[in-house]
């Protein structure tokens, strides 16, 4: 029998299998997808930049002999007691509630061994975290869960959270599954109910009010603590300028790859700017105000290795913060739990239903049995190792560019592989002396 030739089955790019599966999921459940983590879409990133290295016009430093300093001082503008870090990598704010007590302890242990700070999150300060963190930044969030003057005073710095990269303009929700007696007690709410974290602060609106709020916090803490303002990557030039106006000592700028414990996927993927696009406008705002290096800039959102650190510093940041990468270092999404990820309908590397509290790695959970899987001492050492490796990598690149301090890295050390990255980072496209938007072209 003759066979009529047929066109090969063709999948739609617009209606891909992934898109169709989400349509079916929405039709079945009637609710949007909620997940943890940051943007998963491909966006221009630090991988799209390269260091040029030393050559005829620059002397490199000897790799295993000549010193390349990595120390950072944060909070030099107004605070009586700035924070001194050994390395330019800090641990970003993540809440107890979203994370287990063991995970918070491990973050504190690892950060302390590496000579850096860790940060509380929504839900207040735990003893595990304070006890194991030599330098602890206390977040001041719209929900004010667990907020009290004693913890403000025993913090080493205070971070006023205006927004975060995963959801600029959004609040949060810790679902009832993770609200144990301890988590509920710290938040003054009943056990088992969803806990909404507001998107706006309850007692100030706008930078003029914020300036007074900062005055109050400084008065309560004897002007000792550096005050950070954390913003999501929305309008970095103006947001940074206004944060300076409000009196920030340090600005934490979180791009859209920055993670969250839980929010709508549509929010994570469609609101905010990539980290790479945020840095130069932020630095420009600081330079225009004459405050670059006086108000320190900490960049977060998708920092994974020493190259990312070095590139962020070269673009003008003073330090970076890591969240997702720190969790991976502790053991999040480890393939050794693959069989259990499969039972949850996912696979190692893709698991992001952190809000459900069933994390096989025992990190994003309050389940007592799952929590036991994370040994805070072992996990803390892993984080220490990872932070050390990132720092060594960053130093390697800085030395190759001829710098004896990682803060001496500069945009002139970089070129871009793509037009988009060249435009965002304002460094030349490789092989040219041009980037889109460069004056004079």
């Amino acid at each position, binding site marked *: 029998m003759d066979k009529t030739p047929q066109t090969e089955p063709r999948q739609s790019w617009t209606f891909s299998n992934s898109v169709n599966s989400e349509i079916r999921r929405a039709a079945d459940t009637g609710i949007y997808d909620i997940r943890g983590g940051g943007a998963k879409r491909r966006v221009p990133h630090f991988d799209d930049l390269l260091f040029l290295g030393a050559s005829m016009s620059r002397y490199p430093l000897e790799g295993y002999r000549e010193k390349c300093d990595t120390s950072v001082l944060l909070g030099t503008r107004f605070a009586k007691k700035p924070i001194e870090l050994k390395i330019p990598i800090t641990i970003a704010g993540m809440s107890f509630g979203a994370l287990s007590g063991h995970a918070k302890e491990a973050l504190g242990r690892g950060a302390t061994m590496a000579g850096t700070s860790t940060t509380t999150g929504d839900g207040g300060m735990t003893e595990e975290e304070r006890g194991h963190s030599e330098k602890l930044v206390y977040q001041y969030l719209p929900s004010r869960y667990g907020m009290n003057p004693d913890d403000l005073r025993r913090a080493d710095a205070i971070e006023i959270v205006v927004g975060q990269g995963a959801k600029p303009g959004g609040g949060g929700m810790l679902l009832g599954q993770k609200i144990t007696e301890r988590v509920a007690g710290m938040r003054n709410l*009943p056990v088992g109910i969803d806990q909404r974290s*507001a998107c706006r602060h*309850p*007692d100030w609106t706008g930078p003029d009010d914020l300036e007074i709020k900062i005055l109050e916090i400084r008065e309560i803490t004897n002007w000792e603590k550096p005050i950070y303002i954390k913003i999501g990557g929305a309008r970095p030039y103006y947001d940074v300028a206004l944060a300076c106006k409000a009196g920030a000592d340090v600005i934490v700028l979180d791009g859209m790859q920055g993670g969250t414990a839980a929010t709508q996927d549509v929010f994570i993927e469609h609101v905010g700017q990539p980290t790479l696009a945020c840095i130069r406008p932020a630095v420009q705002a600081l330079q225009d105000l004459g405050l670059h290096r006086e108000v320190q800039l900490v960049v977060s959102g998708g920092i994974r290795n020493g190259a990312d650190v070095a590139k962020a510093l070269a673009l003008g940041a003073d330090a970076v913060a890591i969240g997702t990468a720190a969790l991976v270092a502790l053991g999040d999404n480890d393939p050794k739990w693959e069989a259990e990820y499969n039972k949850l309908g996912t696979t190692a590397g893709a698991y992001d239903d952190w809000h459900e509290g069933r994390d096989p790695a025992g990190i994003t959970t309050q389940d007592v049995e799952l929590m036991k899987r994370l040994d805070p001492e072992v996990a803390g050492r892993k984080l220490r190792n990872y932070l050390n490796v990132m720092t060594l990598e960053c130093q390697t690149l800085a030395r190759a560019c001829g710098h004896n301090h990682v803060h001496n890295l500069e945009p002139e050390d970089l070129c871009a592989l793509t037009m988009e990255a060249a435009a965002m980072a304002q460094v030349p496209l490789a092989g040219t002396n041009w980037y889109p938007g460069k004056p004079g072209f």
Partner: protein
Amino acid sequence: MTTTLDKTVLDMTAMELREVNTTLQAAAKAQANAAFEIINPRGSHAMACGLDGPLDVTIKGSTGYYCAGMNKDATVTVEGSAGPGVAENMMSGVVTIEGDASQYAGATGHGGLLNIKGNASSRCGISMKGIDIVVHGNIGHMSAFMAQSGNLVVLGDAGDALGDSLYEARLFVRGNVKSLGADCIKKEMRPEHIEILKELLEKAGADAKPEEFTRYGSARKLYNFNIDHADEY
């Protein structure tokens, strides 16, 4: 600074805010039950904030933002009106406002009594977490928004959207309520509520009977997300 037998007078035309707060904070920490009077406050912000101990402070005039913020154990009286965020995140003690209070009065407060003799503006008791607030006059819109626990007592009227997205805080209003917010409903006044109210009215020196009030609380329908309730938001 002038000291008499029973109190120390701090004049804000002669002292900076930092000096005033340092003096008060040190006296509170000393646990000596000292008394202070602040004159010429001129609407200064962040006055008498962060006090941590038994101390009696009277401010002779009106204050700016965040007066008595994060108060613990101290008694602060404002003989005038208070700007936004008075007694925000208060932990314990008593803060009394003889005049009116601006928006966010008692925001996120964890404990103690905030006693407002006049009216309170919008968002009074927003996100309150255990504080008791008594307002002798009226309160503005969106009061007790996302209020978690504690008691808000209003002798006058309440504005729009009272108790929107309320958790476990108890709201008692003697006058009219312009409208209730999402998930806030009228509730039965049981004997235990009469007792709570009676005690609070006495503490606040309020001339009212518990039986004149209506209790409002959470319907608890929005406690766990349900797509069928999406229109409520």
